[in-house]
Every structure is written in structure tokens, then in C-alpha cells.
């Protein structure tokens, strides 16, 4: 059966919101949970010890727990945290940057990769497999054609490297060391007053014709439409995808997980609409089209 994963929380939520979210998630039918801050080093509502505590609870609830690492590693402080994550032995880590690849592989710590790490071909996977790769995520801008070929090549090479696909949520599209939320409020990044806390699902950026283009989320930019591959689940199962990733939102996530679970079990037809909060749907990347497109 397809596995379901909960990706790392990409937004900045209050400590209590995060704790409540994972307390609930312990009961959801997800197989894997990614934990940790991946976007901005200034977001420190939870420390590593807090994340490890959550990890313990989720592990006891039967989930596979993966510790996610920051996507853009820029400072010595970022590296210090990364070294601490890579020096524990209890959990797999999700490498989102080459620094994490380096530290995990030199510590002989097994790792998986997140969708922000550029894996576009099997030659890259072979390099990483030698270093301890246990699973990988398809970069969000790639689609089914490429994935089919990669899975076939992996099989031909006799490599067992399970593939994960980002399948629901706002797509993480870009990372910068600049903060666009701070910019919106005319604040310097270093003194941002943690305004992201006011926007638990980002700041909507629209064209002057009111088209929802992007969501500004601190130093990251996400899609304005919500990627939704629910109805593509049977196709993914047939092609040999191992896990589909659902990206956390602070409301309605229990329903999203439930719907994906019902569809993967074949309990309800995948065409049943999933009604969550307002945002246009998109699935273009999966079909080799502009990511924002929605194939009918």
C-alpha cells in the first residue's frame, strides 16, 4: 500500500499550535512524519529538544519519524544545529542541503532527501546511495514521465531506493536568504518581529488582476495554488511510488489525511471532491505543464 507522510511544517506557527498539531497527528493514519524547522533559522519557537520530545511520542504511536534539516544553510549557527541533528542516532534525517549530505555521510548516519535537493537523474541517486541514501523525494518541478523513467532505471540497476512524491499542499518553490515577509512590513530581516507568526499559511501574493500567484512565507516562496494529486494516487501506486507527502496546514489537515487514506485503501472513489479551505487547485507539474495549471 502507498505510504502517507506528513512533510515538515513549512510555516511559522506558535509553539502551542505545533504541539497541538502533532498531538493530533499521532492518531492520524500517516506512516511517516518529518519534524523540524526547514525554512528560517530565526524561527525558534521549538528547540531541538522539543522536536525530539515530539519525535518520541510519534515513534511510540508507531510512526516512522524523520528529522528534517534546514534548506538554506548560511551561518555557523546553522551548521551547529545541523551537527547536533546529525550526531544523534535514533532517527533518520531528511537532508535538504548538501551540508546535511556531508555531515550525515561522514557520520555514517542514514538519510533521505527532501524535495528541495536536486535529484533529477539516477546517476545522482547512485552517488548518494553510496553515501547512505535510504529514500528520496522527487523535486517538485518534475512530473510523472521523469519519475517513471527514474524508477525503471533504478530497478534495472538493482537499486532499492523508495521514491516519495509531494502530493498535497502549497508547493515550496524558492528559497532566499532575504525575507519577503519582513520586506512586506518594511522591517530588516534581522529584526523581523517574527511577523510570520501572524500568517500561519503565508502572505498571499496576487497579480494586479487578483490572480493568486504565490504565498510569501518568510525566506521561502510557495505556490499560490494548492498542489493536489489525490486523484493521481492509483497511477502513482501502479508506477511504484512508495510514499506520498502531504504538506501540513494548520486547519483541516485531519480531513486531508483521512481522504488520502480512504483513497489509498480504495474505500472511496478518488474522484470524490476534497473540500478544504479556499485556494485554487493545481497539478500541472505532474503532467509536464506549468506547475500552476490544473489538468481537468
Amino acid at each position, binding site marked *: 500500500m502507498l505510504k502517507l507522510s506528513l512533510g515538515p511544517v513549512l510555516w511559522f506557527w506558535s509553539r502551542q499550535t505545533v504541539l497541538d498539531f502533532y498531538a493530533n497527528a499521532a492518531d492520524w493514519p500517516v506512516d511517516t512524519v518529518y519534524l523540524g524547522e526547514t525554512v528560517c533559522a530565526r524561527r525558534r519557537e521549538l528547540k531541538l529538544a522539543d522536536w525530539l520530545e515530539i519525535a518520541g511520542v510519534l515513534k511510540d504511536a508507531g510512526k516512522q519519524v524523520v528529522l528534517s534539516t534546514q534548506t538554506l544553510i548560511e551561518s555557523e549557527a546553522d551548521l551547529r544545529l545541523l551537527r547536533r541533528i546529525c550526531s544523534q542516532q535514533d532517527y533518520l534525517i531528511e537532508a535538504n542541503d548538501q551540508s546535511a549530505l556531508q555531515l550525515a555521510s561522514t557520520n555514517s548516519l542514514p538519510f533521505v532527501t527532501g524535495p528541495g535537493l*536536486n535529484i533529477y537523474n539516477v546517476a545522482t541517486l547512485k552517488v548518494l546511495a553510496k553515501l547512505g541514501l535510504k529514500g528520496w523525494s522527487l523535486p517538485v*518541478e*518534475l512530473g510523472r514521465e521523469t519519475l517513471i523513467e527514474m524508477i525503471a532505471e533504478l530497478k534495472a540497476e538493482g537499486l532499492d531506493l523508495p521514491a516519495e512524491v509531494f502530493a498535497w499542499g502549497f508547493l515550496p518553490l524558492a528559497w532566499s*536568504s532575504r525575507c519577503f515577509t519582513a520586506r512586506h512590513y518594511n522591517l530588516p530581516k534581522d529584526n523581523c518581529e517574527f511577523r510570520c507568526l501572524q500568517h500561519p499559511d503565508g502572505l498571499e*501574493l496576487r497579480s494586479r488582476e487578483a490572480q493568486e500567484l504565490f504565498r*510569501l512565507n518568510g525566506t521561502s*516562496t510557495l505556490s499560490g495554488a494548492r498542489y493536489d494529486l489525490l486523484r493521481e494516487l492509483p497511477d502513482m501506486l501502479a508506477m511504484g511510488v512508495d510514499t506520498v507527502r502531504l504538506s501540513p496546514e494548520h486547519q483541516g489537515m485531519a480531513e486531508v489525511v483521512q481522504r488520502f487514506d480512504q483513497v489509498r485503501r480504495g474505500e472511496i472513489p478518488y474522484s470524490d471532491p476534497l473540500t478544504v479551505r479556499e485556494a485554487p487547485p493545481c497539478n500541472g507539474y505532474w503532467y509536464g505543464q506549468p506547475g500552476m495549471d490544473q489538468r481537468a
Partner: protein
Amino acid sequence: MELVCPAGSLPALKAAVDNGANAVYLGFKDSTNARQFKGLNFNDKRAAEGIEYAHKNGARVFCAINTFPQPQGWKTWTSAVDRAATLGIDAMILADMGLLDYATSRYPQIDRHLSVQGSATSYEALRFYKDNFGIRRAVLPRVLSLDQIRGLAKHSPVELEVFAFGSLCIMAEGRCYLSSYITDESPNTRGACSPAKAVRWQETPQGLESRLNGILIDRYGKGESAGYPTLCKGRFEVEGSVYHAIEEPVSLNTIDLLPQLQELGISAVKIEGRQRSPAYIADVARTWRQALDLLENSADEFAVDPAWNATLAGLSEGGLTTLGAYHRKWK
């Protein structure tokens, strides 16, 4: 410090070499390099002519093969590596780990530089590329501040090259899919950002409009100068305000920072712009050559000649330049 200049064509390559570039970088006429433009870049014959011209005049030639091949394109990319090696280039600028591995095993004797698209923002990432692919040099993303570069340079296991002048990419290169989200082509997949095929201009009663795959990127009032509709430099609406929500259309210019870059041990400064004309390249190369020569010959007396900045500002987007992320006040 070495002056590394762009060569989108043979005349541009000659202009760069004639005006003092220590090295030029070029790419083939396909999506294997991150600057795929119609009518630009090199076939094998032109590349051979360019390499001969550069070598005769004491300049090196780097070949950028810095997009990310997918299985369907794999042979095109490895063939680009083979062709570059056969042509006798001095270094390959690579980003993809699979391709780096290929180049390392097939052509260990040819220098490998990590492309900015390889997105190395820490010395541990540089060690990763050095340990696994023996890279000699890395081009740093334009998102780092000078302080961050200082920290990185202190522990770097490889030579560092930094962007000095030209268009300003404000996202971590190699990790930006905004373009493919709107148009289906991105720097990673096709070597194109906000590709020309998706651009439309239209005069309307509200003003001149620029669109990218139908999306309104900007609308210009009378007398306002219009820039290329790069989507991160458009004017958008956030919570009721319309502004350059991601970045203003400005160019990067770090000529003021040269003494500091030298002090940090930076090996090379890179000029962006393979899409630019030979005349542009000549002006930029000549200006930076003068600055670097002054720095080399009398570092203590180094001062930026206002004429340099006047020349460079005249060559910049909207006439505006910035230190970009090199200073820390940007928002």
C-alpha cells in the same frame, strides 16, 4: 583576483578577452547551460575558434554545463561534457551531482568548478563537493552577505568565485522553481528563467502591460521605463499594497567591495550576462580590469573611480545598482 566574463557569442568572447578578462565562460547551443537564449551560445566550431582566440591571448575558457539532466536528456548532457573535454576547455562549470560524477571519472584531469546552480551556501556543502567530485572552485550564490562569505571563505576547501556585476538573482540559484511554476521552463530544467516564448507586451488604456504565460507581471505608466518581465521582479499585490513584493529590477554591482573581497581570499569575480552585446561586455570588462589593476598595483590607495560607477550604472537595469545581499540592510 581573476576577472571572469560572460561570452554568449564569439564576438562577445573576443570583446571580453580584448578588454582584460582573465577567463571567459560559455555554453553550448542547447538546454545544457543555464542561459539558453535564441541566437546565442556556441556550436563546436565556434567554441573551438573561441578557445583558440582566448588561449592565444592568455585567457582561459570555462564551459558551463550547469542545468540538471533528466533521464530523457542524460546523453545530451554527458555528450556536452565529452565535447567540452575534446575541445580543450580549461574547466567545466557543473551543478548536477550525477554529471559531476561522470566528469570526475571520465576526465579527472580537467578542472571542475561548482556552478552557482549547485547552491553551496556553507563550507560543509563545499566539502561535500570537494570530497566527492574533487572540485577546484565554487561559484557562490548571490544570496550571501559579506559576513557570511567571510565565514565561508575562512574554512573553504576550494577556490571561491563570487558574482560581481550584472543581473541579480535573489533566490538561491538551483533552488528556484518560480519560472517553471508559471511557464513550465526553469533554470534547472531548461536553462531558462521567465523564457521569452512566454512573454507578451500589450499597450492598454491602463498602460503598457507585460505578461508571462498570460499572468500580468507589471503595468507601466507613461514615461516609466519597462524592464524584462522576470517574474520575481514584477509588481504584485499583497494585503492591498501594490509593490515590487519580491525584488526591485536592479543590477548587482560590487565594485566598492573589491578590497574586502581580496582580503577574504576570493579567487575570482564573475560578471553575469551571456545575453548581453559585445559592446556591453567590452565596457564592463574594461571597467573591472581597471579596478582590479589598481587594486593589484596599489591596494593601499584603492578608491573607486566615480567614472567606473557611472559606466556601470549606465549598463544596469533601470540605471540602478545595488550591493545585493552583500550588505545586510536589504529587506
